[in-house]
Structure formats: C-alpha cells, structure tokens
C-alpha cells in the first residue's frame, strides 16, 4: 500500500465513524463537573498562534538564522518545524545533541508505564481502549496493583508511570490515588497518565505520591479533534487542553505535553505542543517541562492505523525542534518506535526511555498472560536489562532515579 492509499485509509476510517454518529455534543462546551480556568489565556494564545502558523512561508535562511541563535523564539521554532528545515536535519541533530549534552550530560532516565485499568468511556476512533472496541476489559484491584508493582520493582526499575483508560466511574480519583500510594512504596518516582482532572483532584493525587502528570492533547486542531473523539469526557477539547495548568496549580512538579502525530497536520500540532509548553513554563517558571512524541500505531481490530505522513525523518525533525527550542525540557521516547530508532535518539534529543513495556493490564507478573488487552502494539519489547545495555553501548549512562519526593 503506498503512502497516498494509507492516508486515504485513515481519512476513510474517520469519515465513516463520523457519519455513524450524527448527533454529537458540542466539544467546546465544558461539562458541569469540569473546572474552568477563567483567568487563564493560555489556550487562546496556543490556538491563535497555531492558526497563524504558516509553515510554507519559511525559507532556508530562516532556518539557518534560527539555528545560529542561542535562545530561540516561538517563530524560530516554527522555522525548525517547517518543510524548509528538512534539508537541515543533520545540522539540527548536531545542535540538538550539543544541547542535550549541555543540559543532561550523558544521562538517560528509565521508566516503565503500568496500565492498571483499560475501562474507557471515550470513543476515540484511533485508540485500542475506545469504548466501542471489543477487547477484554480489566481493572486491577489493590492486590493486583501491588503484585504488578512488585514484579516491576524486582527488575530494578525505580520510576513508574501509572496509566488507566479514561473512565472516572471505573477508576475514580480515589482508586488512582491509592495506586499512587502503593507505587510510592515500590518506586522513587511516580507519575500519572490518566484522564484530566480538576486542580483539587490533582492536589489529592500529588498528596498520594505522584509528582508528574502527562496528558496528550492528541491534536490541537479543534475541528479534527471533534471528528476523532466522538463521545465521553475526552470529547471536551478545552478541558483537556488546560489539564497541565491545573496540574501545576495542584502542586505537581512536572507536566508533559504531546500531540499524537499523524492525527492531523503534524507540523501545526507540534508547533502547538511546543508553544503550549513554552507558555506554561513562562507562567510557571518552576514547572518541569517534558515532551512525548507519539505517532499513531495499529490497534486491536484495526491494524490499518498508521502515522500517515509522519515518517521517521519527520518525527526526528519534530524531536530536534523541541530540543533546540526548549533545551532544558525532558523528551520521552515511546516503545511505539523501533529499537534502532530509540537507541539513536537518546543522547541526541530524548532524555528518557521506557523499558519492560506492556500496554495491557496485569501482564508484568511472570507467567501471567494478562487480564486485559493492550492499548496499542509496541515496537520495542526489550526488558530493562536489555535497554540498560543498549544505553551503555552508546556511551551513555542509564539513570534509574534523579528525583526525591518532598
């Protein structure tokens, strides 16, 4: 299947789903239980800048000028994400490597994601957990969580990222908080990637031991977002977009940003991600910023999903642009990518890599097939020990923890 056909295939999936769901709610309208940050203008600024961002207007000299600057402006960042920057990918990779060395030395942090529930109330047509997808659903109870964490901790892992499908009914804030408390017994560093919460809920989760919050906006293009997220809380675009700000206000030390590359115009999405992080950092200078760079992956019952026009080359361009624009920010590289790609981007732009990954429920305990199906297919199934060896093999230093909970 050539590239054009692939793109059409994805479009078709989208359109078909949209047609099946005629009566859809207003995705810009907050639901009653959702907190509104009425004093914040970050969303407005991010969206306006993205709408104004015309990546076709940049030239080679704009790219060169950006690469010569010590501190880049959002407009320079826009130049690095533009097609005009593609011929400069090698120079970008060199500058990115320099910045990564300056700010992180040879260190590469390790973590593993732990999925504790895959119940989901959202209907996001590209996601394996979506509520219409016929998969095995499961939710770990306290003992199950403990068993999984014990098994992961035994491998030597010291940082865990707790994930759930997005169902506040099946995995309420208390449940997630309890998981964080248990995680705090086994791990030095606990992060969450769960449904967006209100400020007081983030404060509660923080009190339970989590200090980092990851929320993928998926796409910052509101129209496209509306077509892809057909039902559930997640359908509310602005509530999701303001999650990081609420998390920081709730006392979280760090927040992570991402667009799922391939859902919409990836250059505009990446520009919005960078700008969003930039504005949060300016407003909350103490907040630790990091980026994830996920591309679309095949899911159970739909192996046709693919990242469209975001090939490895474009992905690397995005990652290097993030690094050069915000040299101090963490960048996490997902197991969505193959081992060969991951091993080369650590030390260049990525500063954190996952290992021993399973995106299913309850599959870390030895001999256990797992109770619930996975969110997406991973491309790199290496264990912690294998990834540590790969890091060392590249002359870098694996770091299991660089954090203290206070």
């Amino acid at each position, binding site marked *: 299947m050539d590239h054009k056909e692939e793109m059409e295939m994805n479009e078709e999936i989208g359109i078909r789903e949209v047609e099946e769901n005629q009566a859809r709610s207003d995705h810009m309208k907050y639901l009653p239980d959702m907190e509104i940050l009425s004093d914040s203008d970050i969303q407005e600024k991010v969206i306006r800048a993205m709408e104004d961002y015309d990546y076709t207007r940049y030239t080679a000299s704009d790219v060169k000028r950006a690469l010569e600057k010590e501190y880049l402006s959002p407009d320079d960042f826009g130049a690095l994400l533009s097609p005009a920057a593609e011929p400069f990918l090698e120079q970008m990779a060199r500058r990115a490597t320099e910045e990564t060395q300056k700010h992180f030395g040879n260190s590469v942090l390790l973590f593993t994601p732990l999925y504790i529930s895959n119940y989901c109330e959202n209907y996001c047509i590209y996601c394996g957990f979506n509520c219409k997808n016929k998969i095995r659903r499961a939710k770990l109870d306290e003992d199950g969580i403990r068993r999984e964490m014990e098994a992961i901790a035994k491998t030597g892992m010291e940082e865990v990222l707790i994930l759930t499908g997005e169902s506040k009914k099946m995995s309420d804030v208390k449940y997630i908080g309890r998981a964080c408390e248990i995680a705090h017994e086994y791990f030095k560093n606990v992060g969450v990637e769960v449904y967006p919460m209100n400020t007081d809920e983030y404060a509660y989760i923080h009190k339970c031991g989590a200090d980092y919050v990851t929320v993928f906006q998926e796409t910052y293009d509101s129209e496209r977002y509306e077509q892809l997220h057909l039902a559930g809380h997640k359908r509310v675009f602005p509530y999701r977009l303001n999650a990081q700000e609420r998390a920081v206000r709730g006392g979280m030390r760090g927040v992570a940003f991402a667009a799922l590359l391939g859902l919409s115009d990836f250059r505009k999405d990446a520009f919005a991600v960078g700008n969003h992080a930039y504005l949060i950092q300016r407003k909350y200078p*103490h907040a630790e910023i990091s980026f994830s760079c996920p591309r679309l992956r095949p899911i159970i019952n739909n192996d046709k999903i693919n990242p469209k026009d975001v090939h490895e080359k474009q992905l690397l361009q995005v990652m290097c642009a993030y690094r050069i624009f915000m040299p*101090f920010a963490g960048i996490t590289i997902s197991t969505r990518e193959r081992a060969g790609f991951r091993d080369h981007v650590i030390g260049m732009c990525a500063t954190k890599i996952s290992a021993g990954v399973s995106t299913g429920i309850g599959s870390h305990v030895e001999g256990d097939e797992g109770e619930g199906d996975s969110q997406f297919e991973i491309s790199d199934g290496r264990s912690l020990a294998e990834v540590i060896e790969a890091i060392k093999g590249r002359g870098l*230093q694996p770091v299991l923890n660089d954090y*203290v909970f206070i």
Partner: protein
Amino acid sequence: MSDKLIIGGHEFTSRFILGSGKYDPELIRAAVEHAGAQIITLALRRVNSFSGNILEHIPEGVTLLPNTSGARNAEEAVKIAKLAREAGCGEFIKIEVIHDSKYLLPDNYETAKACEMLAKEGFIPMPYMYPDLNAARDMVNAGAAAIMPLAAPIGSNQGQATQSFIRILIEEIDLPIIVDAGIGKPSQACEAMEMGAAAIMANTAIATAGNIVEMAEAFRHAIIAGRTAYLAGTGRVLDRASASSPLTGFLQE
C-alpha cells in the same frame, strides 16, 4: 604545603571540587585520581537510588558535599538536607534552591533563608548563589561556611560571564569564594583562581570531554597555576595605556 582551603573548620589541600549534575563512577575516579578532588558534590536525589549505593563509589578520605537540588524553596532545602544527613552524607551541605526550570538560576532570597535554618540545625552550609554582594553578606550573617557564586548559567560552559561581580565578592567577603557553574575550560578555571577564587567547582566540562582523564588532569594543572599566580601576586595589569609624557610634568618644585 601551608596553602590550605579551610571550609567550616575543615582543611583541604585541593582546590578542585567535583560538581554533581552528570554523576558517573568513572567521572568520580578521574576527578579524585587525576584532578585531585577531595570534595565531591552529590545530588541527594541521585544518592537516593535503590540500585547500588553511590556512596560506595566514593573513595576513602574524600569529603561528600550533598546538595539540595530539587528544592524550590528554603523549607524543601532543609528537608532534603536532613534526608542527606540521615543517608550518611555528613554535615556539609551545598544549598541549591531553584524554581526556574529554564535557566536553573538560584533564588538568593530563599537560599539565604535556607542558610540560616540549616546553620541552626548544625549543618555546614555552602550556598550556591547568583553573585550579588548584598545577598552574599546575608548568607555570611546567616552562617554560611563558603559562598559559591555562579560564573555563568549552569552547564553553559561560558566561563566567567559574571566575572566583575565575583571579583567584588572576592574583595568584600571574608569566606572562601568558590566559583561554581559555567566553567567550561581549564583556562577559565585558571583565570578565576588567578583573580583570587578559593576553589573551582566543575562537572560538565570534564564529564563531556572527549577524554575524561586528560581533562581532569588539565583542570588540576590550571587550578594550581592560577592559585600560584594569585599567591605570587600578578604583575600590574594596566587597564589604560600610560601616557608617555605625564600631564603633571609642568609642575615646578
């Protein structure tokens, strides 16, 4: 050897201190064996790891200087310092209070507060600070054992971007001034020592060098050269050219 560095009543003959940041057993070995480091900074957040006790990598006779990196205010710095003491890191504490994730610039106000709180708790506080004379005086009054001004933004390898201000601290403050952060090359370390800095703290410059051992050696030589020049009293370096025919030559007896 009577030229000693004295911090909080403890004597050291080396004037190179290994910074934390990019911690690595290989780097520690090079710093001790080839740069002559007697003090090694360690971030508690790194010590605080299950996998292998970092403290085991510290050679005997080397003084540990745990830092409070990760602290965003004075209270958090005190908490981290206490955790470090419990972990067996001793009484020395390098105070780092940072709530700026972009430039990682220290907050002098919170740092001075932390200094006072920690001195009262029996620590030997060594504050990392932005070179401001008033803040440095506050830290001295709060019980600091040394003042550690930054030369340039951390990890920037820019050398002494704040040279004029560090010079003022050296002139006015009676405690050892240890130049921290931003020293990227041995020549920059030498320059700071020549100016009268009591010691140099570096990490990135050595950690990211092509050959760690050789760079560690180079720093040792540079620091000794700078110190020796300072003690020798550098010759008069004129800021302006001296006029060949003096303006006051017309005066009669």
